[in-house]
Every structure is written in structure tokens, then in C-alpha cells.
């Protein structure tokens, strides 16, 4: 099978916890994706980057512009890896996974939020689009892997 990624790129950055910093990072990633990733995979790849970073801004850094978080991204042959770590208190990702599994077991949506709620979809999108999502013990670091 022909690999989707012909070359690769790596981006390592410490970002301020503001949406404009996420946007700048994502626009740079988009430039790399347009160059190295086949078109059908670009939307999912960029969406995963955005959600991983948004999650750090909103939950890890509590949207405090004075806070910062670190992101390492690697786009290799057939694989995107995004690692994000913040200095926040982390969260109980096991509880989120339990709720998600309960929802799947009861044939409800895999999205974590009620469909009329205005927030709470970031993790649902990560689980929907990623091949693998892993958190550290504390819940302040996430690694997202997407295979193409």
C-alpha cells in the first residue's frame, strides 16, 4: 500500500495558552500537511492537532494567557503523533473513558457530551478521529496517534 505521507515534518514548540497561538501552530501544520499528506487525511490530522492543543489551553491552562504548554508533533510515513503536556493538575481520564465505554455499551453516541450542550466535545473528537489516545497517570499529558 502506498504510504500517505511522502516525507515528514517535526514541530516542537512551547505555546502560550491562547487561541491565537493554537491557530498559528495549526496554520503552520496545515502548510506541512498540504505538502506531505494526501488530501483525504488532512482534515482529520489538523482536527486532531487542534483538539489536542485546545484541550491544553482550556483545561490544562484554564485559558490563562500567562500559562504555557508544550507540544511535539511528528508527521512520519503513514503516522501522525501529537504529544501535549501542560503544567495543570490533570484530569480523571479514567472516569471519562468509563463514561465513554458506558455510552458505547448502551448504543449512545461516542461523543462525550449531550448533543445539545455547547461544550465538552473535544475528547469525543479525539477518540473519534485518532487511532490511539493515551494520557499519563496525572492526566496533564496526552499522546494522540493517527495512522493513515
Amino acid at each position, binding site marked *: 500500500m502506498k504510504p500517505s505521507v511522502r516525507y515528514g515534518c517535526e514541530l516542537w514548540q512551547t505555546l502560550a495558552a491562547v*487561541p*491565537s497561538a*493554537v*491557530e498559528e501552530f*495549526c496554520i503552520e501544520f496545515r502548510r506541512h500537511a498540504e505538502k506531505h499528506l494526501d488530501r483525504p487525511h488532512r*482534515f*482529520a490530522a*489538523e*482536527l486532531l492537532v*487542534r*483538539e489536542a492543543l*485546545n484541550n491544553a*489551553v482550556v483545561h490544562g491552562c484554564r485559558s490563562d494567557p500567562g500559562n504555557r504548554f508544550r507540544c511535539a508533533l511528528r508527521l512520519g510515513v503513514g503516522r501522525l503523533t501529537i504529544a501535549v503536556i501542560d503544567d495543570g493538575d490533570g484530569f480523571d481520564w479514567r472516569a471519562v473513558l468509563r463514561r465513554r465505554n458506558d455510552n458505547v455499551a448502551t448504543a449512545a*453516541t*461516542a*461523543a462525550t457530551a449531550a*448533543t*445539545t*450542550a*455547547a*461544550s465538552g*466535545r*473535544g475528547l*469525543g*473528537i479525539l477518540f*473519534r478521529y485518532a487511532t490511539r489516545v493515551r494520557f499519563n497517570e496525572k492526566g496533564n499529558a496526552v499522546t494522540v496517534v493517527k495512522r493513515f
Partner: protein
Amino acid sequence: MITLTREDSRALIRPTEEDVVAAWAPEYRSKMRGAVADGVRELVLDLANVQMVDSTGIGLLIAAHNSLRKLGGHLAVIHASADILDLFQSMRIHQHFSVSGQ
């Protein structure tokens, strides 16, 4: 630029390139809230020039839908790309307001 064209109680919001994502959420929120406060009850968002919608953007659309519904109005999204349509369907957004593709 995010433009808003108004006709009676209907309004069309059409961005020239701004994605419906966290960084642009304040602009979209301001336009939508302003329109609803100004009497708009049928709000149409044209995504023809939009490449990306993230979870913040979806939250924004749901909030607009909820506000309009309480007032007897509705939200519609038009010209969404296949990727955005797929995202809306997987998040079950399309069950709440009208979403159509390009």
C-alpha cells in the same frame, strides 16, 4: 472578513476564509449574538470558504441554535465540505439544525 447580510428577520453570515475554530470564535459569537439581539430569527451560516470546524466551533453553533430555538427561530448551515459534514454527523449535530453540503 466575516460578513453579515440582513433582510428582515433573516441573516446570512459568510466568512471569506475564517475557519469556525477557537481563534475565530469571538468574532462569530459577536456576529451571531448581535444578530439575534437585533431581531434575527433565521440565521444561515455559509461555510463555502471554511476548511475547518473544531469543537469550539461546534459549541458555538449549538449555542446559537439553542438561543434561536428559544425565540422560535432556527439556524441553518450551508455549503459545508464533506469533511465537515462527516464531523457534524459523527457528533450528531445534524439532528438539531439544517446542514447541507457544497
